[in-house]
């Protein structure tokens, strides 16, 4: 389980997160929702140990990572797969080298086995395995995001998956394929996942639990159904344009099988 306990974080004296406390249940998907600049992506950076909080404790499987040595953090990170905003694929490497990055870096895997693993992971995320020798800039944004997910999954079969705005900047069809993939991974592989997004439809589609941030403060922590019925003024205002879609999503009203996103947006 992942837990944030009274976490404060600031940059140059400017508070980014203030007194953040929430839990991510084992095997579930928690969505961190909020407007741009609310500190969502920072929570993932803290969770990966890319930044250290000013105060508070962050635990992964009961281990406090906030005071951990860099060496130990590197071991913890091997249990985590991260999908960065825009993919963050290594542009000097091929698709295959990107997906196999963690295996090449840490494990002595034979080339033939490596290629098999890469192809299997590309297939898992719905990509043609023959893309293995392409460079990232030869792929569309949606395909790059899928390669990033494949890279995260190939990283020593991680127990935790983090997604930082995985659908930002994608066309609706590509975005939908990505969220479908995240739901599939959640249901099939039972990974503990944290997804950061400002897209309400995406959030309701994938979340088991939700945390809502506003100006660095946690204003909600609960289930999607609780969120849809909360009286918190900021959340009401934030959800207002999508109120009907939110209710539809929480009631699981699906008019087209497998097309929950389109329904949620009606």
């Amino acid at each position, binding site marked *: 389980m992942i837990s944030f306990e009274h976490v404060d974080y600031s940059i140059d004296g400017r508070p980014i997160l203030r007194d953040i406390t929430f839990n991510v249940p084992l095997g579930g998907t928690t969505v961190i929702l909020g407007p741009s600049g609310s500190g969502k992506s920072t929570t993932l*950076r803290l969770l*990966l140990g*890319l930044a250290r909080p000013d105060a508070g404790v962050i635990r992964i499987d009961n281990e406090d990572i906030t005071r951990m040595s860099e060496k130990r953090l*590197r071991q913890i*990170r*091997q249990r*985590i797969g*991260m999908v*960065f*905003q*825009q993919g*963050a*694929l*290594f*542009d000097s490497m091929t698709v295959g080298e990107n997906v196999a*990055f*963690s295996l090449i*870096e*840490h494990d002595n895997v034979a080339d033939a086995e490596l290629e098999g693993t890469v192809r299997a992971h590309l297939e898992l995320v719905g990509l043609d395995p023959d893309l293995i020798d392409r460079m990232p800039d030869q792929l569309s944004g949606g395909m790059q995001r899928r390669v990033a997910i494949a*890279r995260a999954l190939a*990283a020593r079969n991680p127990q935790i998956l983090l997604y930082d705005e995985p659908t930002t900047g994608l066309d609706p069809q590509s975005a939908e394929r990505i969220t479908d993939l995240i739901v599939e991974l959640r249901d099939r592989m039972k990974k503990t996942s944290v997804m950061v997004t400002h897209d309400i439809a995406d959030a309701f589609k994938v979340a088991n639990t939700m945390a809502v941030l506003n100006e660095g403060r946690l204003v909600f922590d609960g289930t999607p159904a609780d969120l849809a019925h909360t009286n918190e003024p900021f959340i009401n205002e934030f959800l207002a344009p999508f109120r009907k879609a939110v209710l539809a999503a929480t009631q699981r009203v699906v008019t087209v099988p497998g097309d929950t996103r389109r329904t949620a947006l009606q």
Partner: protein
Amino acid sequence: MELIAAIVERLRRILEVVQDFVLFAWDAIRATFSPPYYGREFLSQLHFALVGSLLIVIVSAAVAGQALAIQLVRELANTGAKSQLGHFMVISVVRALGPVLTGMVVASRMSAGITAEIGAMRSSDQIDALVAFGSDPMKRLVVPRVAALLIALPVLVIIGDALAVVGGGFVGLQYHLPVESYYSGVLKYLTPKNVMVGMIKPFVFALMIATVACWRGFRSAGGAKGVGVSTTESVVISSVGILVADGVCTRLVFRILGW
């Protein structure tokens, strides 16, 4: 009072920047002495630094060497000491001009290249991705670049020096200075001490160029504009740094040699 406060604040910021660079350089040094080592990345950077810089070093050294030789041979001819051209070319090129000229040419190319590449990686989260997937960016990005330039720059300085000196010989020929006379002067003054004075510098320059370029790349912020600013800073710091380091190295080596 406001002026004093502003000066103090300015000094504090400069100290912070210097401290940041020193800590970065220290991390880079520490990363050098422990595995893993990235051989493929090192070879790729060596190719970029050595083969990629070869043409501009050849052109600039040949042109600058001939220009220097023309200046020298005319003055020497006026004093009846034309036969000393080889001597003066070795002292000027091998001890002073060669390392600085090649250093500047390589600095402008490599500083810009390294800072822009690492800065772009920073702004597209690729450096965070390296960390997230258990890699150490110091070992993967900084150490291979520093090591590659530490090998490439001295080799380029030797090539540049040789071309400049040979170019001086052609100029001497134009001014009716026999080849034997020119090269006997060259060989007489191409002593281990003179070579040492010139060949310590490229190692110092390489260390500085690569470390500063990586440091500015890592600290790049603010997207494309930030990468542009960092790249400019990197080239300026390296270029000025080469001139300062040249002065310091010359004084230091002269003192060591007891000259």
